[in-house]
């Protein structure tokens, strides 16, 4: 009996259990209350259904959230990802007619790297707080994206470009393969390279890692560059999915979704260890939540209220002080 308890306790202590429970709960809810949620049909050799839809729509959030995980693990944050997404999408689509496809994609990715480099320089080398440093690009970014699109919503009918966000590969949406590739690549970096070790070390204790010979500044710069690159990849996914670049609305508030995914996934806002798999599941949870609310016929605008409540509940659960209050109450109940 006690061994089962111990095992249960050890499972409860692993961070990954929370996002999985949340995801399972929302799927279970769908099983009972949303008919046909788990139906998957094959049309034209592709899989169709709510679940596939969730996978497809979660891909941009997932990619951004993976970049954000690295940043948050360094006690940082990047609130400019939505703007970077818009810039990358605008660059790719405005270049499509002029240069070959691969060059447009590379240009968009380079722009993402440059945005990340800018953020990283401000934060790592000038020592500006992360929120404040990325705030600049968040404000200016939309302006730059509008400058590129000249204030219009650019559209494209390029089939090959459309494949990135809309196409199917082996019956599954192609975007999910991109997200999976990003995930596996970062996971490989974390688990198998020295860089991964440095990443975790600087997040856990900056000063001691500096004494150990790791240069925290370079690592900080690196994570912001990765985050910018991830935002650019997500920008390609989003703009290709809707075949257009909208400087004002593309990726609006995706930073909140991404931060939420990271926090649900078990990475603490105070830095330290990070959990990439948790982040991915967190992103899936958020998209499932959104899709569920849609399919229940609730007007989409009200999702914001639900998300706001989820954010508060999750951060309350992570708050030590909140837990202590509850533990005290339990103890009092036992004593009384």
């Amino acid at each position, binding site marked *: 009996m006690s061994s089962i308890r111990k095992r249960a306790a050890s499972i409860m202590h692993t961070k990954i259990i929370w996002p999985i429970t949340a995801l399972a709960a929302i799927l279970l809810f769908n099983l009972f209350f949303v008919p046909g949620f788990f139906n998957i049909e094959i049309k034209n050799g592709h899989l169709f259904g709510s679940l596939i839809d969730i996978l497809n729509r979660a891909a941009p959030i997932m990619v951004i959230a993976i970049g954000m995980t690295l940043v948050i693990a360094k006690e940082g*944050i990047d609130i400019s990802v939505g703007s970077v997404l818009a810039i990358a999408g605008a660059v790719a689509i405005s270049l499509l007619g002029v240069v070959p496809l691969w060059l447009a994609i590379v240009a968009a990715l380079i722009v993402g790297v440059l945005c990340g480099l800018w953020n990283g320089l401000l934060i790592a080398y*000038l*020592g*500006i*707080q992360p*929120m*404040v*440093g990325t*705030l*600049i*690009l*968040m*404000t*200016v970014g*939309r*302006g*730059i994206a*509008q*400058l590129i699109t*000249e*204030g219009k919503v650019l559209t494209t009918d390029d089939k090959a470009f459309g494949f990135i966000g809309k196409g199917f590969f082996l019956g599954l949406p192609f975007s999910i393969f991109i997200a999976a590739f990003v995930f596996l690549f970062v996971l490989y970096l974390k688990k198998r390279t020295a860089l991964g070790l440095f990443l975790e070390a600087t997040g856990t204790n900056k000063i001691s890692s500096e004494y150990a010979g790791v240069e925290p500044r370079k690592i900080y710069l690196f994570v912001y560059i990765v985050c910018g690159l991830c935002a650019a990849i997500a920008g390609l996914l989003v703009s290709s999915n809707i075949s257009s670049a909208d400087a004002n609305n593309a990726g609006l*508030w995706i930073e*909140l979704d991404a*931060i939420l995914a990271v*926090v649900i996934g078990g990475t603490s*806002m105070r830095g330290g260890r990070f959990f990439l798999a948790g982040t991915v599941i967190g992103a899936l949870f958020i998209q499932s939540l959104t899709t569920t609310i849609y399919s229940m016929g609730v*007007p989409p*605008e*009200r*999702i*914001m*209220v*639900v*998300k*706001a*409540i989820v*954010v*508060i509940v999750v*951060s*309350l659960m992570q*708050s*030590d*002080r*909140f837990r202590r*209050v509850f533990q005290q109450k339990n103890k009092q109940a036992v004593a009384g």
Partner: protein
Amino acid sequence: MKLNLRINQNNIIILSTLLLIILLYGAGSVLYTGFFTWQVFFNLFIDNAYLIIVATGLAFVIITGGIDLSVASVVAFVSVVSAALLQEGMNAYAVMAICLLIGILFGAAQGYLIQRFDLHPWIVTLAGMFLARGASYFITTQSIVIENATYTAISKFKINLVGSNFISVSVVIALAVVAIAIYVAKYTEFGRAVFAIGGSERSAVLMGLPVPRITVLVYTISGFCSALGGIVFTFYMLSGYNLHLMGMEMDAIAACVIGGILLTGGFGYLVGPLLGVICSGIIQTIVMYQGTLSSWWTKIAVGFLLFLFILLQRVIVIRRQRRRIISHAAGKPAPNGGDRRAPASV
């Protein structure tokens, strides 16, 4: 009382903001005819009265080292609530009272969560921003026009100054808010405690200051100012719409930064947000007068200013730290380092 007019690191930011305002306004006056008139100057206040109020409330939060991202959503929410209630035929003054109450409760709730459970202010107020935006969708998704007699009368009321040039009631409210804020920050126990918390929360606790109460109060003030800003904004627009002022929280933060409120907390003059708002207002007016520039240039220009002022703040903070280390090493207080938290006279 001797007025200290020497340029030092306490007032360098605010002086550079003033200089910037004069330069920008001068440049506008030289470049465009009709720029250098009283009415254009008054319009800066009329068009931005709500932003002045909101930014001033936000300044208190920033001085304690926190942040409030929910301000713009609260303004939009208040505009929707007042439009909906007025449509129902409620008394205009009762509507204003309800709106202010909503702002106070909303701010206090955020402050409580942040203080009691030690949550990150960015996260809590980000959620608050979503909550307020989403909540206004529950009332309506359309824009409601306000036809209430009291509201239109206040909206159209002109106070003549300097000949036929006028300001609106909102400007008077905004300037009153700024004046009260300056008084509160400088001459009350509460104001001094706000600066103390921003300087170092731990020291403030050790000094016996009621840190929890003041933290909650500060967010309550920000909520109140957002609601008041919402009412003023409703006078200005005469409509309630939940898509009003998307992203205005960034304008408010930018106004505070440009006005010399240190984002790390602990320092700033409460007249700063007003100057910051006027600064971005002038940029907007210049872009408008120029004619061929598109509206997004305002965003880019304000963002660039934001960058410059954040950089300036950073330089000042680094210099202060260096001075503190030197003074520690010398074993005696630095000439100006000891009283750096004291809000010096403007």
